[in-house]
């Protein structure tokens, strides 16, 4: 049985930015664009408003709490229907009375579902879901800023939030109510409903995404029949994000939900889940906007490893495959994730990946960007990692020694040099014999490399000569033919031009 675990306690009513660490600040010291130009918070309307043909005049209904028990459900139903009327929030003075009536009604509905028992009876389910659908499901409007950068720009906020928030709050209370019966709800909260709910995660408004996150988590927890479908659709959203659009605002929120879902996966892992890890989660690391959801992504990856250690090799080799080549900021994130992984890696798994892994780490240490080199060298401050290195010193030291030795003499940054000295010292203490051998053979190895390089150049020269010869012999016949043709052509064109000249 797969059960989602609790989400981190972030109350939707006080939307926080979650654990989105201001990675930009962490990584480089330069002032970001966002600090220089603080954008005005804009708000936008949803495309839905125009679809309401004629505006209905709302009249206030009696309060729920004053209603006699016999009429309560009827009144509740009427209020739900009243709340299906949509208002234009871009025109902030339009129909203020109607807006207030709806707001009050929504407030009452929220209050009623949250506090009183026995309200949620069967006939109310379709009405409630209809009210929710009418209000929240809409085609999200085009982003006002076509180059919207979630890291730099202020998001456009949903104009109808005063009502929308209450609708979401109602939905959440509805799902969380002790009276809520999944067997009744599943008739209305179906695949189509969930698909539309998932599409809303692209909303630019972080408050909306926060609610959606909590709601989807509850839906996943309570409506078991929808689980596989939800996972599949999230997969599709991610694949589209990775390979088609590179744009989707709710990646972090969806990953946060997945983090708790992975936690509840049954063992042994189904191949569907492994496939999700290898073909979706790992490729997500290639996204340009990785920094926005990296924390959540790394959490999911580590969750997988803790569930089943045998996926370790796939994960590490996958990360190595997608290792950033030009973006040092992302490289630092990758190194952070590798450390998180190494923190929980099983020694037997470590041995399987140590070789390619430490080749990459050596490459990072020789990065001219000091933050990359520094982040890689910090691994030696981690006691568990250090113990793994010590156990496998025979393999690892030869992989990194050359780099350490060279960078200790060449790097421009003093901090890096002193960190490298510490690392070298650690290695010397670990295995002084091997260390001395490597020191002694360093120059010889260097010369070998230079020689190999020369040989390569020589090979290619020969190869190109060979190509030249082959090409010549291959084209000889056709060239002769071509020459013949050209000769014919030139004589023809010459006669033509001379004819033209005479006229």
């Amino acid at each position, binding site marked *: 049985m797969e059960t989602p675990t609790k989400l981190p306690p972030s109350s939707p009513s006080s939307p926080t930015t979650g654990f989105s660490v201001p990675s930009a600040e962490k990584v480089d010291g330069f002032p970001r664009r966002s600090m220089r130009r603080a954008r005005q918070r804009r708000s936008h309307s949803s495309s839905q408003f125009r679809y309401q043909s004629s505006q209905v005049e709302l009249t206030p209904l009696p309060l729920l709490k004053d209603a006699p028990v016999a009429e309560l459900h009827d009144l509740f139903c009427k209020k739900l229907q009243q709340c299906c009327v949509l208002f234009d929030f871009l025109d902030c003075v339009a129909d203020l009375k109607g807006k207030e009536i709806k707001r009050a009604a929504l407030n009452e509905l929220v209050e009623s579902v949250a506090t009183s028992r026995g309200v949620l009876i069967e006939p109310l389910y379709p009405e409630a879901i209809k009210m929710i659908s009418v209000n929240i499901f809409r*085609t999200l*409007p*085009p982003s006002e800023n076509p180059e919207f950068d979630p890291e730099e720009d202020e998001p456009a906020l949903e104009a109808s939030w005063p009502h929308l928030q209450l609708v979401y709050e109602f939905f959440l209370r509805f799902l969380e109510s002790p009276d809520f019966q999944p067997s009744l709800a599943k008739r209305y909260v179906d695949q189509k409903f969930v698909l539309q709910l998932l599409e809303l995660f692209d909303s630019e408004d972080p408050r909306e995404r926060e609610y959606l996150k909590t709601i989807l988590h509850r839906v996943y927890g309570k409506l078991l029949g929808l689980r596989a479908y939800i996972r599949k659709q999230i997969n599709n959203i991610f*694949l*589209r994000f990775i390979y088609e659009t590179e744009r989707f605002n709710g990646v972090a929120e969806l990953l946060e939900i997945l983090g708790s879902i992975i936690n509840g996966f049954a063992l042994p892992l189904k191949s569907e889940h492994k496939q999700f890890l290898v073909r979706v989660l790992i490729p997500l690391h290639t996204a340009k906007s990785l920094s926005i959801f990296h924390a959540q992504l790394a959490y999911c990856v580590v969750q997988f490893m803790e569930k089943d250690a045998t996926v370790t090799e796939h994960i590490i080799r996958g990360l190595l495959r997608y290792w950033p080549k030009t973006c040092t900021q992302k490289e630092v994130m990758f190194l952070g994730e590798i450390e998180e992984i190494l923190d929980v890696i099983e020694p037997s798994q470590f041995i399987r990946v140590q070789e390619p892994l430490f080749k990459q780490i050596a490459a990072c240490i020789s990065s001219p960007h000091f933050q990359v080199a520094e982040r890689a060298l910090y691994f030696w401050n981690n006691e568990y990692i250090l113990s793994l290195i010590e156990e496998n010193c025979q393999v690892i030291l030869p992989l990194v020694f050359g780099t350490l030795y060279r960078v200790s003499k060449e790097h421009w940054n003093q901090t890096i040099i002193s960190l490298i000295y510490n690392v070298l010292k650690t290695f010397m203490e670990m295995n002084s014999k091997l260390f001395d051998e490597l020191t002694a053979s360093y120059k010889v190895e260097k010369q070998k490399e230079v020689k190999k390089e020369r040989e*390569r150049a020589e090979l290619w020269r020969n190869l190109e000569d060979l190509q030249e010869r082959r090409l010549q012999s291959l084209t000889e016949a056709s060239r002769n033919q071509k020459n013949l043709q050209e000769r014919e052509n030139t004589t023809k064109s010459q006669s033509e031009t001379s004819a033209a000249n005479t006229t």
Partner: protein
Amino acid sequence: NIKEIGPGVEPLASKMAGADSDDSLYPIAVLIDELRNEDVQLRLNSIKKLSTIALALGVERTRTELLPFLTDTIYDEDEVLLALAEQLGNFTMLVGGPEYVHCLLPPLESLATVEETVVRDKAVESLRKISHEHSPVDLEVHFEPLVKRLASGDWFTSRTSACGLFSVCYPRVSSTVKAEIRQHFRTLCSDDTPMVRRAAASKLGEFAKVLELEYVKSDIISLFTALASDEQDSVRLLAVEAGVSIATLLPQEDLEALVMPTLRQAAEDKSWRVRYMVADKFSDLQKAVGPEITKNDLVPAFQNLLKDCEAEVRAAAANKVKEFCENLPEDSRETIIMTHILPCVKELVSDTNQHVKSALASVIMGLSTILGKDNTIEHLLPLFLAQLKDECPEVRLNIISNLDCVNEVIGIRQLSQSLLPAIVELAEDAKWRVRLAIIEYMPLLAGQLGVEFFDEKLNSLCMAWLVDHVYAIREAATCNLMKLVEKFGAEWAQNTIVPKVLGMANDPNYLHRMTTLFCINALSEVCGQEITTKHMLPVVFKMSNDQVANVRFNVAKSLQKIGPVLDSNCLQTEVKPVLEKLASDQDMDVKYFAQEAISVLSLA
């Protein structure tokens, strides 16, 4: 299951064991070594030189050793795979010509299944390319089975790739195989993953074009209808484009029943992305469905798009206003425009969104040629004038840059009263790019407004740009003067602009003094020898004593530039001494340019 990652290390060394003095065994060893290289760049280099290696190996060993090696062992960085996919598309001759081209299919097949879109697309592109080199028999024996395998692959990537291959093999296979291909395409159109449905939708139009008309009607229409009502708007919007292609294939009498209901529905889709697509393809659609349907259906649809609630859609539709009106059937064109389109256009002039207004401004002037003089004066002119006063500079600029359309119909004089304030305001806009844009239209405006109007109203603007604080503006202003002189003649130049330009030679700011030199460079040729020698040259000589070295070396450059305009006597007696003096200047740059001028003008 996961593919092995990293450079493949297939023990092909065994094949090398037999390598003796034969140098043809050499290259494959190099290739393997290079592919094992840890440096991606080196691996990439060797893949990019794959044709070198293949050529050296000869066709047979390329087929029997190189290709199997590539197929089995390369699971590499996407960049390497991309290069490989591209190379293989040009490999036909290297494997022995069309007879053997099917040998290239296995490696391309596995490249067509990788995750990365760019690699996959390139593999499909190469497959499409080499499909034409297959004989009909090979197409059925080798190519079509590959398409089928891809179409029924487990992971969405291979099915996505398959979508692009149906149309290249369909026309050249037997009718049984054709039926199979149609069946596979149908299946992919209702695939479980939206990625595949998107790929199928984007190839639907292309596929329809190679199908027999009866199958277009029986198969394609139902697929089109289904895709156009997909649950995902990303699929629906791709169906719109397919709809346009399909409409061009069908006879007129079938259009109403087979495609119009779906297209009508798309124009009113609840997703703005779909409506945007309809607006964007509107002219193509109009051509595809013909005049009758245009009158009855497209006109109201177009009105709705122009009034859409999303600015994106309105802007896309506004962009099409001129083209749509132009392509209306002649008999009812004017009526439709006047009663249906123009009212919407009037509203767009005061739209809240500047992109909508500027899209409109870029085409609205074109309506005047369609509507003729009287309608233009009565109905369009007020709109032009309103847009000329728009708060957004881009809108004003778009109007001004299209003035020539109006000029042909009603003459520009009608506009000149409003034009002037608009031009003046743009000329002084805080954004230098806006100023630059208006300068570029000056010669055109001057031509249309005539010399008197120009002297009276615009001349001072043109001179003011010469002292703009942005170099790009000063440079453009210089070039502008040259074009004006081309229009108005040397005499005009001598009376109006030359005195002002030369006056700047005494400006305390050295940048302005240099502008004088730049103007002289630009003007000497169009003004001719007399003005140059008589008026400009003395000023240039005087500036050779300037205290700023930059001015002095620009004197040398100017002399080099205007030298060809002067007569040889003047060059020898007047220019040469000045250049010689500059050639012994204490500043090395001045010396350099003076010497250069001396040698170019052959004064040594």
